[in-house]
């Protein structure tokens, strides 16, 4: 009896596992765009990997309707998802857009992150018409959810010259534009003017990271070790943004020319060496939970500089209102004399669902909100979002002096963005980046292991993960 019972149990378990696996298989095999064909029927398009027939239909309709160039049919109802401050900005944008075009109805939904969106994309249903993405996730989404996004080349190709060049490769899959840029984040060096002055450090003398380290030593000495010039998570578990700043400056990539993982690159080694030097010279502090620990350190004068995307200006104003007038910012230090000091740290994009019933309204709204000075002004004024749309950079909303800083961070960022190296985010960057965080940063900075060994071992592990993800 017992034996029979065991058999039955084993059978049941096997059946359950098969059932759940079958569920997964179904999820992958069904092209999300095609799964809800009734939704897609009203002149929407799909990309070539999806339903090709409907793509052809859509091209034809759009071709005739758009004869007058960018004169989209703006009637219809669409849903947009966005997070955080982008949400606040787009709510205002949608409100103004609907006032101008009463035939359009735009509902904005606030999301915490894209967990829900990934479920919707995998299920192929419930996908919002316009969805916000972290720009680094774009190529991954093109690969993982192929067929889910609308080809918006007809809109985007008109604006190629106006978009910050570094972000363009993330908006296209091959030659097709599937995404429009929202904010970008040219990196600046934010610093405490009062501490610099007290310690006799002249910010203009900081041209290279070596100069930065020298300044850090002076500050460390003058403040008896209280104030450090750099803070980052030595373990890399909560964030690895700081070492990545140098990595971006040096046009680093986690992938070699064959698309295989390669952590052991010059850019990574340069970044690691410079940061190790900061640790050795005792001018850096560990921030185990980087985001909140950094704010704590800044509040208590334990940290006096932060190299970060221009959006960090908003963080300072919001979380450190008491320190108004004590902050300023300048261009990043470079690795060598006259080296590149431009990098990008953060930013987002939007994509349009291939199933949208109102593709023209989506494109029309994106054009006005993200690809015009008027829209960029709303983004800057409501949420200090620095758009990728370059003509806006000369607008007063960007250039006017911010009293908190006594200068304009956005104006400076506008000057420091044309030479940013292309953003190195091929598909699955985030997944591979997680292995870099856990297997390269901690073992090197905390355990003090040999750099080459650490990077090679992490590369090996990440390569396996990459192959798994690509075949999934």
């Amino acid at each position, binding site marked *: 009896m017992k034996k029979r*019972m065991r058999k039955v149990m084993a059978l049941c378990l096997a059946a359950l596992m098969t059932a*759940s696996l079958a569920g997964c298989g179904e999820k992958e095999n069904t092209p999300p765009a095609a799964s809800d064909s009734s939704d897609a029927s009203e002149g929407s398009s799909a990309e070539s990997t999806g339903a090709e027939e409907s793509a052809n239909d859509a091209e034809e309709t759009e071709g005739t309707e758009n004869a007058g160039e960018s004169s989209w049919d703006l009637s219809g109802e669409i849903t947009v998802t966005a997070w955080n401050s982008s949400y606040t900005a787009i709510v205002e944008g949608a409100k103004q857009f609907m006032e101008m075009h009463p035939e359009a109805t735009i509902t904005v939904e606030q999301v915490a992150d894209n967990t829900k969106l990934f479920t*919707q994309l995998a299920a192929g*249903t419930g996908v919002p018409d316009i969805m916000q993405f972290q720009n680094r996730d774009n190529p991954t989404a093109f690969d993982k959810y192929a067929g889910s996004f609308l080809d918006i080349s007809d809109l985007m190709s008109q604006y190629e010259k106006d978009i910050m060049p570094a972000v363009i490769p993330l908006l296209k899959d091959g030659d097709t534009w599937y995404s429009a840029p929202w904010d970008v984040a040219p990196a600046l060096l934010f610093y405490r003017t009062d501490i610099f002055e007290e310690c006799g450090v002249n910010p203009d003398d900081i041209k290279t990271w070596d100069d930065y380290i020298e300044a850090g030593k002076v500050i460390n000495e003058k403040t008896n070790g209280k104030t450090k010039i750099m803070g980052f998570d030595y373990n890399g578990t909560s964030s690895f943004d700081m070492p990545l700043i140098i990595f971006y400056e040096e046009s680093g990539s986690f992938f070699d020319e064959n698309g295989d993982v390669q952590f052991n690159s010059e850019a990574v080694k340069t970044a690691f060496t410079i940061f190790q030097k900061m640790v050795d010279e005792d001018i850096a502090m560990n921030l185990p939970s980087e985001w*909140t620990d950094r704010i704590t350190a800044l509040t208590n004068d334990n940290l006096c500089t932060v190299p970060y995307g221009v959006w960090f200006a908003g963080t300072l104003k919001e979380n*450190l209102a008491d320190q108004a007038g004590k902050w300023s910012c300048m261009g990043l230090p470079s690795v060598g004399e006259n080296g590149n000091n431009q990098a990008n740290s953060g930013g987002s994009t939007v994509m349009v669902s291939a199933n949208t019933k109102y593709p023209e309204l989506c494109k029309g709204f994106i054009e006005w909100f993200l690809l015009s000075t008027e829209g960029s002004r709303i983004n800057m004024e409501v949420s200090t979002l620095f758009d990728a749309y370059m003509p806006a950079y000369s607008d007063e909303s960007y250039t006017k002096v911010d009293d908190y800083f006594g200068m304009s961070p956005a104006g400076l960022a506008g000057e420091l963005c044309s030479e940013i190296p292309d953003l190195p985010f091929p598909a699955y960057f985030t997944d591979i980046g997680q292995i870099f965080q856990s297997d390269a940063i901690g073992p090197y900075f905390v355990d003090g292991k040999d750099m080459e060994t650490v990077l090679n071992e992490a590369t090996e592990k990440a390569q396996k993960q990459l192959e798994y993800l690509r075949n999934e």
Partner: protein
Amino acid sequence: MKMKNKTRLASFICYCLLAVCVVLTLFPYLWTFLAATHTNSQVFNFEYSFKLGSNLIQNYYDLLEALPIWNNLFSSLFVAAVYTVLILLIDSMAGYGFSQYQFKGRDTLFIVILAAMMIPVQVLMVPLYIQFSKMNMVDSWWGIILSGLPGAFGVFLMRQAMLSFPRDLVESARIDGAGEARNFFTIVLPNMKPALTSLGILSFVNQWGNYYVPLVLLNTTEKYTVPVAISLLAQPNFDINYGALMLGACMAVLPIMVFFLIFQKNFIDGMMAGAIKG
């Protein structure tokens, strides 16, 4: 005399250790509460860490501006309460069936139910989402409630509790002419209070803290349950208002604390009952 001193010393040390544990456990709550009264720039300033701030009301207004927090609390309460009532009813009926009836394939069926406990909700989410969107239940509280109902844990708990209920008693009630419904509701169920309480509390607490399913199924900020709503405030970006966030966290924890304190005695009893009768 010596012996007595020794035990006194032992219990003194014991209490000291326990006191340290209590402080360690309560400290995060205390800090959260204090932080809820601070301005954004005081939250991380060590000078204010142990002081009561004066920004509570402003934080409350900020929280209200960012979130319809009372709607969110109502959503959480509604979902958790309805879910708990349904779970108690359904699982106790299932448990009754498994423990009191003899039928073919009963044990096999029970094992299948137990095996279902091993499937994580993340695996089920995509099929569930498709199903609920076809049933027009996306952005509805019923989607969350229904998706949680087929839980195996409650069935298991109720079956274990009911196994100890004398079958003869049910039999004699039947002979006296009681129908099955009457048998269940008036004879068996009143005796299952400890098990029902512990299942009720566990279900309520689980549903109150449920993040993933409401996150995926709900679209409207007004309908969001508290954990999803609070997560909107807590992203590493520049407009985190920590004071408001901490106040939101306090408001999220408070109802569940009150609920637990009221039922605490029954809860512990229920746990013990389940543990021994298994």
